[in-house]
């Protein structure tokens, strides 16, 4: 494998991690959606680069799915939901931005240590992709944990899923079926959560997930 192939793949995968951090940094919902769309674009680029490098044309389909659904359809839809529901435009954090970022750095370090150690004799490109993918997944989880707002939790979940796709394309020879199913599962999850949002809104007049706890009678 040539030097350039590796460098570009590294650049794009690193860009994905960076986008995850930018998601953590945002404090406005619309900006969050824009960054998410950008992350999807980077993911599409990364996947199509893998398709080119590995000579696997079916990966282009995955890239196209990522581009169409995640970079365009879902952000636009969420945008409209936010407008229609009149949700607070600000992200409500449980933990401040600074500590979240630091925790994120720790998670990235952890995933590098784990992945580089476990996959010691794998193909270098796959190794690196896996390390980055695990970071993206963990950062997505972190985002879901530290945010109160249901919309940002959805975004966190989807960025987590971006990490999964990165891992899937990095591992050579993964069949297309799986990817399509993964993409569709996200779509389904999106629909489910979207309708859920409406339901929450109808019942409790807020999308703050803490409100659910309160109504369940649980104590924080």
């Amino acid at each position, binding site marked *: 494998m040539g030097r*350039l192939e590796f460098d*570009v793949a590294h650049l794009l995968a690193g860009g994905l991690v*960076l986008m995850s951090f930018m998601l953590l940094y945002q404090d406005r919902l619309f900006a969050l959606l824009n960054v998410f769309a950008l992350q999807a674009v980077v993911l599409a680029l990364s996947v199509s680069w893998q398709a080119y490098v590995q000579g696997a044309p079916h990966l282009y389909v995955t890239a196209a799915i990522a581009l169409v659904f995640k970079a365009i359809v879902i952000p636009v839809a969420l945008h409209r939901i936010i407008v229609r529901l009149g949700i607070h435009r600000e992200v409500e954090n449980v933990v401040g931005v600074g500590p979240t970022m630091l925790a994120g750095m720790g998670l*990235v370090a952890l995933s*590098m240590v784990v992945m580089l150690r476990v996959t010691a004799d794998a193909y270098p490109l796959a190794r690196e992709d896996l390390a980055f993918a695990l970071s993206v997944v963990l950062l997505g989880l972190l985002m879901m944990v530290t945010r109160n707002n249901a919309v940002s939790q959805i975004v966190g979940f989807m960025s987590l899923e971006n990490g999964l796709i990165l891992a899937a394309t990095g591992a050579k020879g993964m069949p297309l079926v799986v990817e399509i199913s993964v993409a569709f599962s996200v779509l389904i999850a999106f629909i489910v959560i979207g309708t859920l949002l409406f339901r929450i809104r109808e019942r409790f007049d807020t999308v703050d997930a803490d409100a659910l706890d309160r109504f369940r009678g649980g104590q924080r």
Partner: protein
Amino acid sequence: MIFDLAIQNAQMLLVLALAPLLTGFIRKVKARLLRRQGPPLLQPYRDLLRLLRKEAVLAENASWLFRVIPYLIFAATWVAASLVPTFAAGLMFNWSADLIAVIALLGSARFFLALAGMDAGTSFGGIGSSREMMIATLAEPATIMIVFTLALLAGSTQLSVVAGFMLSPAVGLRVSLGLALVALVMVAIAENARIPIDNPATHLELTMVHEAMLLEYSGRHLAVIELAASLKLLLYMSLIACVFIPWGQAQPGGGASAQMIGVAAYIAKLAAGGVLLALFETAVAKMRVFRVSDFLGAALMLGLLGTLLLFVSRSL
């Protein structure tokens, strides 16, 4: 040897001569972007000359330190600026301080400026000093992380060596370098008191930082400090240019023509940097003082991330 010494001296004089021009240029571009005429390009020189000729008014309580500090700040900044390779790499005294020492020299200048702010015993001076030191506590670790990234890549903290490495094909496309560049730009904006951290054009505002420390200065002292501030801006631009776009720098042993090309390339880089800074400053709004920690925290995070990602690409 003589030629080397001449080039070193030429660099020292060049940065000193160009610094006010850069400030004037940025002001001009900003004014044009706002569809104003703007002051002439040479206005900063005229301001400096006028200030130099005036008498210095000292506050009643000002001590000897207050009068010494402007020269100390100027000297530390000037020495730092002349140690960063601008138009030629491998200057004669480049090795006397590496990147960490250059940053620490700027730290010395800041230390004394903050002391000057507290000398007259006024409330505004204290505001400026305390905020400046707060900003520095966040900017300095970010800078060190950037230095780490560069040093891990190039295997050196010598600026000439780093610039040489960046010119070599070994550098490749690296996301860490991009992160380091963004972080360095953020730090440079904060360190030079530019929008969105501080407004260089304001003089009577509760949010001012840099200007608040200078309130009691007048005459020649003010002129020297203003010149040092311009030099610092030039230094950061040269630093970014030297590390990230070193093309066109004259290499050691290059003849007079190489040096001329180097100077031309350097001025072109500065102009580009000035236009970009003016564009950026026009496009964003100043942020609250306590949002600064988020801004610089992000720079620190980018630096750390750059170092971490570098480990991945290096270990393969």
